[in-house]
């Protein structure tokens, strides 16, 4: 597979390490959220057959975490974003 890195352009997916569903970005706050919230956050998945937002880490590249939107049936990649930008846009900060 080829991932079109927002900064570096097309790179072989071999250079990346896969984590999984981008919903993992939505980590609850441990001081307010309880076990149920964390359980759902960490363990349950939509696992769609189709467009899937997922986290890839460019370990053998620039060390960026990316949010890749990829079709899990055709493997077509629809969108690639810097995870940090997505996280900030989603209101994550410190």
């Amino acid at each position, binding site marked *: 597979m080829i991932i079109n890195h927002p*900064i*570096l*352009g097309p790179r*072989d997916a*071999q*250079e990346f390490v896969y984590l999984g569903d981008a919903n993992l970005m939505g980590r609850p706050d441990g001081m307010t959220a309880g076990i149920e919230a964390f359980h759902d956050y960490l363990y349950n998945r939509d696992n769609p057959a189709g467009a899937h937002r997922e986290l890839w880490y460019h*370990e*053998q*590249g*620039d*060390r*960026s975490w990316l949010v890749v939107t990829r079709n899990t049936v055709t493997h077509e990649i629809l969108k690639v974003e*810097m995870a*940090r930008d997505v996280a900030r846009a989603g209101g994550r900060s410190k």
Partner: protein
Amino acid sequence: MANAWKSLTALGQDTAQVVAIGPYQISERFDVALASLAVRRGQNAAFAMAAQTAGVPLPPASSFAAGEVFSAFWVTPEMWFIEADFASHQDITAHLKPLFGDTASITEQTDAWVRFDVAGTGLAALFERLTNIDLVSLPDGFASRTVIEHLGVYLIKRSATEVVLYGPRSSALGLLHALQVTAKSII
């Protein structure tokens, strides 16, 4: 002082090695100091100013820029690797820190890496067997991390006939071995 200390190159020798195979010359470089230079959050402007005054180039992504004293290549967003002459910059971070103050995080990298300068004509034929980087179509000054025989390395295309590699120092022998057997297979 420190010069009383005997150093060993990454290949375990007293002096840097040069290997010639056909048109290719593989030279270990042992005279370059290296440090990582990263912008502290919210300091971009001051950081850029400091870099300018200090004459530290800050090339854009995927590229290398040579400078008077300091040269640099891009590593990751808001981080560069800075090169300098080792003899005059043994403790490169000590040189850089005063120049950047609180605007940057600076870390010694010199001995984390082994550097090989690979020179010669027909580098494309060599590197197409080593990495997935499309050497011919990339501009001079292209710099990127890539993989050679399971090893993560930084590759800098200085010119059509010169490529600089920074590989993990602990695997220097393995990296040289990969370069050698591949070079032999195409001459």
